[in-house]
């Protein structure tokens, strides 16, 4: 590290998604050489609160760990509690859980695509994608009663059932979504703005991805074909066929394409669910107090592998509940993608897209970026808009 190292803290707040986190970048010129992470701005103490509520009361709380991939947390939680009872739930409920999960995945990936458009400066893409995302939210509302945070899965099955009217609505909505997603895929794959800001940006080699425990589309964009739905099938995933999407360019472009392709796969999976869903009850009543046991449950959230651990002590409240959301596993590889090493150079202007690349659910970056130049004794502040303008200047140079 040379003498002219500048520290660049990027703290809480982000126009498109948000949750505060604070990054301090040590910079030489425009190259980032080291990154320090400070999280905790969104830390609320949920795990402690869960120990003082019953298993049923915890469902809305678990859901609000993340408002965007909320079904992943509810399905994982209810599955975990059902593992304690060691009682199987109705097959129809398992299919319904997959249905809501894949609809949520479509919604989350479309949301992220819009955010990428916003980050890269392509505001039109943001508006178009979010308009189409409303279609998915309408389908979710028809099925569950709320657009977001719907607590569809409950301990023992699901709260509501699928009727033929809703099924018909979902099929029509899926046709529209498929056509629009294919259009976005064609647009994104050839658009020069997106290509310039995503090709060879934020490389994470496959070895690094394994060593640093990357999960989800972040891992699959480094050509590792692993997915919880295939490796550790839960709910009805043992019967529903799908392709694991992996790209081998290991850069931000691969992360975009993995998510777009996964959206198309999810649309097919929802159609398969609707065609093959068995009839039967959707819920089995379980007693309030599970036996003394421990259980571990994993689910593929839109952002990656979501793992929960529960320990029961014979009362109707959990003794310990641990939630490891996928973004906290992706922080370490994120820091690696943001550090210049060997033949991979990372520039300050790449910061917004790299932060968007892991699809942050618990991170948020400051609108203002503080620059401190120790050698010259200068301090100045840039807003996120100025940082993005710096990004466009760099693109022209490349």
């Amino acid at each position, binding site marked *: 590290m040379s003498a002219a190292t500048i520290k660049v803290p990027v703290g*809480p*707040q982000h*126009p*498109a*998604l*948000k*949750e*505060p986190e604070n990054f301090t970048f040590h910079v030489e010129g425009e190259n980032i050489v080291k990154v320090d992470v400070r999280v*905790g*701005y*969104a*830390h*609320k*103490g*949920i795990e*402690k*609160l869960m120990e*003082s509520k019953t298993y049923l009361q915890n469902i*809305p*709380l678990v859901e*609000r*760990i*993340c*408002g*965007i991939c*909320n079904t992943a947390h509810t399905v994982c939680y209810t599955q975990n509690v059902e593992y304690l009872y060691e009682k199987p739930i109705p097959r129809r409920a398992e299919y319904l859980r997959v249905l809501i999960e894949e609809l949520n995945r479509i919604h989350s990936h479309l*949301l992220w695509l819009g955010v990428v458009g916003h980050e890269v400066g392509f505001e039109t893409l943001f*508006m178009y994608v*979010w*308009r189409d*995302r*409303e279609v998915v939210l309408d389908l979710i509302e028809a099925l569950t009663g709320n*657009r*977001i*945070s719907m607590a569809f899965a409950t301990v023992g099955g699901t709260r509501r059932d699928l009727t033929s009217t809703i099924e018909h609505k979902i099929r029509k909505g899926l046709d529209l979504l498929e056509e629009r997603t294919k259009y976005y895929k064609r647009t994104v794959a050839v658009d020069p703005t997106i290509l310039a800001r995503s090709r060879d940006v934020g490389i994470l080699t496959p070895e690094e991805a394994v060593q640093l425990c990357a999960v989800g589309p972040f891992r699959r964009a480094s050509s590792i074909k692993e997915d919880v739905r295939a490796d550790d099938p839960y709910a009805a995933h043992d019967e529903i066929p799908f392709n694991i999407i992996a790209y081998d360019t290991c850069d931000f472009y691969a992360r975009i394409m993995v998510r777009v392709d996964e959206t198309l796969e999810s649309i097919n999976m929802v159609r398969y669910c609707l065609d093959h869903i068995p009839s039967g009850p959707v819920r089995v009543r379980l007693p309030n107090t599970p036996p003394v046991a421990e259980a571990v449950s994993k689910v593929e959230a839109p952002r990656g592998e979501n793992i929960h651990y529960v320990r029961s002590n014979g009362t109707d409240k959990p003794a310990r509940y641990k939630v490891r959301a996928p973004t906290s596993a992706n922080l370490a590889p994120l820091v690696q993608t943001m550090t210049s090493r060997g033949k991979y150079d990372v520039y300050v202007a790449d910061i917004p897209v790299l932060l968007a690349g892991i699809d942050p*659910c618990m991170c*948020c970056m400051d*609108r203002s970026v503080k620059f401190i130049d120790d050698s010259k004794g200068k301090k100045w502040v840039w*807003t*996120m*808009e100025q940082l993005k303008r710096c990004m466009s200047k760099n693109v022209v140079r490349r």
Partner: protein
Amino acid sequence: MKLVSWSRASSPWILHFNTGGCNACDIEVLAALDPRFDVERFGVLLKGSPRHADVMVVTGPVNRQVRDRVIRVYEQMAEPKFVVSVGNCCNSAGVYRGCYNVYSGLDTVIPVDAYVYGCPPKPENILQAIAALQAKIKGG
């Protein structure tokens, strides 16, 4: 005076601040900007800096880490300024009431002018809040 109130009410520029919530309210605030709900027809613009904004839209439960930043951003805004608290968590800590790191509502930290209920509130609720705030400003 009426002209001033009318001009203030016609273009409330908002600053969106998330104090560490689950993001559901944030995406509903942003959904209010998208073509279906289109809050920009009310003259609302999303701004990046507290100096440019009239209305601070806050989501998420205020926790210990973020409290000083909320107060600082509020003080940086120029008078007259208004605060809208969006979502149950911001109004009263919502589901997180009882957590060791969460205050019982935004109004224990800064004064609030409008409360939007819901978990998360639908974009229509947020539009209703903006319209009510505009009526309040016009009224003086």
